[in-house]
């Protein structure tokens, strides 16, 4: 075969496969949205699920997913920032640092079901937290923390060296340099990464089935005292998230419209992930502009 023909065939094939991937995504999204969108209404998003009658919604599940995300981020962000900054700025290259990096790698590639089982064993049973939002949030932290560490470390490493050196030249302490010179520059990248990882947390189900539970007790949305058991904010209640709900409804749903609910919930989940993606892009850019612009004025 002439090289030219081979080139043409190969190019066509590559373009074909690349477009095939695009087609797969469009097909996937299209399928989920087309099947789900006409089931989504304000009522569907806010009302409680029905066990055997049609017309149930996913209100509590949606709330649980969001609340669990907030709890997880509350635990993950400070820890992840700390460990990430340590890795980027403090750790000296050597065996220990190498070992820690290995740990982060291993932890981030653990299957989520292992994380869930470990959560069941340690948090749910051993620490006796039961199936609860807090158990779920801690399990998700195990799952999200390595990601957060890596995001932070990478963000700090991309900060130009000159910035740090200028700080040292001014006689600033390391901590001062980290918090007031490097962190603001690294922040946009960190925020983008965090929001993207939030999307992953939002869709996680395997780790939560064993930790946050698969039941959703009745919630009283007018009671916001986190200590009351029927309060939506109580972190010690079991909580079924949207992703777990899809799993459960697909398998155990007794309601006659279970399939439509699963389709609708899938669509909601995918839309939320889309939103996280858009938000990550937009917010990262926005913060970057804001921080750099304010720098110039000062």
């Amino acid at each position, binding site marked *: 075969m002439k090289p030219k023909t081979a080139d043409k065939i190969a190019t066509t094939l590559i373009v074909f496969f690349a477009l095939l991937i695009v087609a797969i995504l469009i097909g996937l999204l299209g399928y989920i949205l087309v099947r789900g969108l006409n089931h989504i209404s304000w009522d569907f998003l806010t009302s409680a699920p029905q*066990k055997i009658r049609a017309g149930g919604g996913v209100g509590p599940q949606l709330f649980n997913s969001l609340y669990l995300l907030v709890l997880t981020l509350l635990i993950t962000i400070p820890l992840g920032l700390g460990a990430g900054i340590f890795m980027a700025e403090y750790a000296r290259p050597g065996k220990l640092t190498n070992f820690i990096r290995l740990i982060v790698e291993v932890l981030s590639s653990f299957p989520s079901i292992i994380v869930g089982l470990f959560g069941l064993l340690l948090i749910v049973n051993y620490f006796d937290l039961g199936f609860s939002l*807090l158990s779920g949030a801690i399990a998700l932290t195990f799952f999200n923390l390595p990601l957060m560490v890596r995001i932070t470390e990478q963000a700090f490493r991309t900060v130009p060296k000159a910035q740090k050196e200028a700080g040292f030249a001014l006689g600033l302490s390391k901590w001062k340099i980290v918090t007031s010179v490097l962190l603001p520059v690294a922040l946009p990248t960190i925020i983008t990464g965090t929001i993207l990882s939030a999307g992953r947390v939002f869709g996680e189900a395997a780790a939560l089935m064993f930790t946050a539970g*698969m*039941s959703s007790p009745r919630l009283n949305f007018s009671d916001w005292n986190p200590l009351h058991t029927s309060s939506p904010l109580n972190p010690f209640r079991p909580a079924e998230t949207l992703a777990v709900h899809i799993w459960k409804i697909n398998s155990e749903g007794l309601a006659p419209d279970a399939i439509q609910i699963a389709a609708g919930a899938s669509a909601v989940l995918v839309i939320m992930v889309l939103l996280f993606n858009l938000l990550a892009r937009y917010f990262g850019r926005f913060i970057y502009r804001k921080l750099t612009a304010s720098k110039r004025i000062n």
Partner: protein
Amino acid sequence: MQFRKSWIMALALTSVVALSACGNSNNGGNNAAATNTPTENSGSGAELSGSILASGSTALQPLVEQAAESFMDANSGVDIQVQGGGSGTGLTQVAEGQVDIGNSDVFAEEKLKDADAEKAAALVDHQVAVVAIAAVSNPDAGVDNLTKQQLVDIFTGKITNWSEVGGADQAIQIINRPSSSGTRATFEAFALGTKTEDLQGSVQEDSSGTVKKMIGETPGAIGYLALSYLDDTVKTLNYDGVEPSVDNVVSGDYPVWAYQHMYTNGEPNEVVKAFLDYMLTDEVQNGDVVELGYIPASAMQVSRDVDGNVTKK
């Protein structure tokens, strides 16, 4: 900048600490309520207060949840949480005192065997409902009735085509449950009368919804479902000529059924007892139980012990 940052960090940390702290107090309150209340029971008018934690069987969960809601409406001082996790989880947790009630599809003795047998002995059984299981097939299989022997032959792989039992010329596709499933244990014990080994190529799904979907969609499929899941997408098969109906189960004519158990560790305290009693009232037995597709335990004209011996009441 660093001020705000450290503020947020501090805030997050304290909130985490605070949350875990109130977790402890919550649990403490839980136990205290459970132990304190029983002394001052003075008949029907006394206001109950305390909290109940139940976990276990996902099949029983909707019923307990629904009953718990109406019980909490009537007793505002009581808080009941119902969690899933599976029968095994429920039994483990009630045996170890992590929950007040363990929900199970099977007798505790069947799950807690050998080394754990004494754990099972400490558990007190409360049978709140009955679930009957029917053999079902894809509607195109063309069979209405299967005898016990035919079912055994199908599930052991001796019969592989529907034409052998008088149906269409179609290969039989078994949609089974995993061997740890309570539904399968019930079906094997009372419909087949024997344990079966998994067959190569058979499909195993744990959840009734998926089983129903698969049987409805797959030509030649056979499986089994609780009565509450039956609808037009699948064909319900008679067993030895007996229709799997509620009446036939209640009278004892249809043998493939099992109790739904709510286990307590030792005799229950007052709050838990009140709730379990409530589960057995006519209000629940003829209301939620029937509505959710279970059969009231109180209506049964026969009873069965852990070894499977059936006696007329």
